[in-house]
């Protein structure tokens, strides 16, 4: 009979907190957006599902063995762990107060070897790291997964259009203004007391404006892991929303005439140029911005494998089996950061709001930069392709093409927009490097 009671008291329904229920709904919403609205499904299906898993009451899939023990272990075990952590538990306080104070000590004040000792105790009485927690440690805390995905993206990227018209790199640079303006916006909100973001958090939020998933995850895993869930969700969701966010801004900032500008056909690019380009980029990173080396290094490596033509089986694996495996693990890991206590806060709304602002400003900056370049250069640039500078490869380039076709049904901008589009990837990785240098 008391086994039945245990069962009921251990069931999800009995322990379901409001926040967890809300987060499960958020996970279902993400799945709906991914499956039926085609919002970046490759990432949002695993993220949404991981979010649900992380919020299953009592399952503890997203927390460490130590946290699990703190949450559910018997008082005797708690006292042992307290001793290991060098803390004393108030004998008069109730069990929940003990758990609260142990949690605070373990996460904030305890020394690494004390935490290790407490974890030893938790594991010796049968607790283990949750599956999603293990995935997160291996894939994201180590920084490996976003880098391997970036390698795969490099192996999928054709720099031909960029090499044919290197000036489009300026568009990719300008669009990164979205990142820094948003950083500043977050700082302003904090200094006005509306939100409460540190500079590190503001930087991690800003990077949403880079419109590049792995870069966002990498940066926030370094600068603000506590916001990683909200930032990744915002980044991927807004990347999917690019066809809705960008066109009004693009139309607002350009005249019909500008949108009709025809661009000169791109020159053919030799194979050798494509092979040398990732190496040139790598050397420049090495010389001027070592902190962007992990991201851009792996990106260049993937691209070199693609272009060098002698390691096709590696390039193929990097673009398929490897990136798919890592995507599954990465998505579930990001989902593990969608736990109620960290996600359901006012700050998350701030992140979502700031994220869309970041996309808007980046788009505008790209378009305006293209208009500026038209003023100083003879070679005409259709300002619409400036919007592709935010990256969101290849969606933003397609949007530029589509808006261009509305003005002139014979003006195909896609290949021209691919230049700033991939330039935007480089630009936001550079921005990430700067931020990590100063705040990491």
């Amino acid at each position, binding site marked *: 009979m008391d086994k039945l009671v245990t069962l009921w008291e251990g069931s999800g329904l009995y322990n379901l907190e409001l926040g967890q229920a809300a987060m499960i709904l958020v996970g279902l919403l993400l799945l709906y957006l991914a499956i039926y609205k085609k919002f970046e499904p490759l990432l949002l299906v695993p993220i949404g599902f991981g979010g649900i898993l992380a919020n299953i009451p009592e399952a503890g899939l997203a927390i460490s063995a130590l946290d699990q023990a703190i949450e559910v272990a018997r008082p005797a075990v708690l006292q042992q762990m307290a001793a290991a952590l060098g803390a004393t538990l108030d004998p008069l306080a109730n069990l929940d107060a003990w758990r609260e104070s142990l949690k605070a000590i373990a996460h904030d004040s305890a020394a690494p070897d004390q935490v290790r000792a407490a974890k030893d105790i938790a594991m010796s009485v049968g607790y283990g790291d949750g599956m999603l927690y293990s995935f997160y440690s291996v894939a994201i805390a180590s920084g490996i997964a976003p880098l391997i995905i970036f390698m795969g993206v490099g192996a999928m990227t054709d720099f031909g259009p960029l090499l044919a018209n290197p000036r489009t790199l300026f568009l990719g640079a300008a669009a990164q203004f979205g990142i820094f303006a948003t950083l500043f916006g977050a700082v302003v909100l*904090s*200094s*006005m007391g509306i939100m409460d973001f540190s*500079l590190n958090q503001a930087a991690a939020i800003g990077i949403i404006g880079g419109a590049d998933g792995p870069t966002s995850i990498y940066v926030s895993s370094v600068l603000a892991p506590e916001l990683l869930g909200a930032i990744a969700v915002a980044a991927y969701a807004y990347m999917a929303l690019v066809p809705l966010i960008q066109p009004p801004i693009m139309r607002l900032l350009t005249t019909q005439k500008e949108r009709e500008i025809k661009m000169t056909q791109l020159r053919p690019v030799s194979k050798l140029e494509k092979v040398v380009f990732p190496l040139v980029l790598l050397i*420049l990173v090495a010389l001027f*911005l070592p902190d962007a080396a992990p991201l851009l290094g792996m990106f260049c490596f993937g691209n070199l494998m693609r272009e060098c033509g002698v390691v096709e089986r590696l390039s193929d694996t990097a673009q398929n089996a490897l990136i798919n495996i890592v995507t599954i693990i990465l998505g579930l890991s990001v989902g593990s950061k969608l736990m109620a206590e960290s996600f359901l806060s006012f700050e998350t709304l701030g992140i979502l709001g700031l994220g869309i602002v970041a996309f808007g400003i980046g788009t505008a900056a790209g378009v305006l930069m293209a208009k500026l370049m038209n003023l100083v250069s003879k070679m005409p640039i259709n300002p619409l392709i400036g919007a592709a500078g935010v990256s969101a490869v290849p969606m933003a380039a397609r949007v530029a093409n589509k808006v261009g076709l509305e003005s002139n049904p014979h003006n195909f901008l896609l290949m021209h927009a691919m230049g700033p589009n991939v330039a935007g990837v*480089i630009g936001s990785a550079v921005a990430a490097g*700067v931020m990590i240098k*100063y705040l990491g």
Partner: protein
Amino acid sequence: MQDYELLQDGLALMALGMGVVFVFLTILVISVTLMSKLIGRFEPAPVVAETSKSSPQSAAPSGQNDEMMAVISAAVHRYRSTRRR
């Protein structure tokens, strides 16, 4: 007071960040343009590209071709020995 400092830091980081992005990409534009010119000068693109594409395949079929050949010959061997049995 601290808020002011945060604001200032944010502003500085914004300025610095955009500056670095622009400077870095400017250097990249220059480097890429130089690279393309150099490559274009030393090796007139179209001809060379084709040469460098065809020559390794015919002249130095070492690495992967070898492997390919070994696999094929192993397959042939296997096929033959199967047939004969």
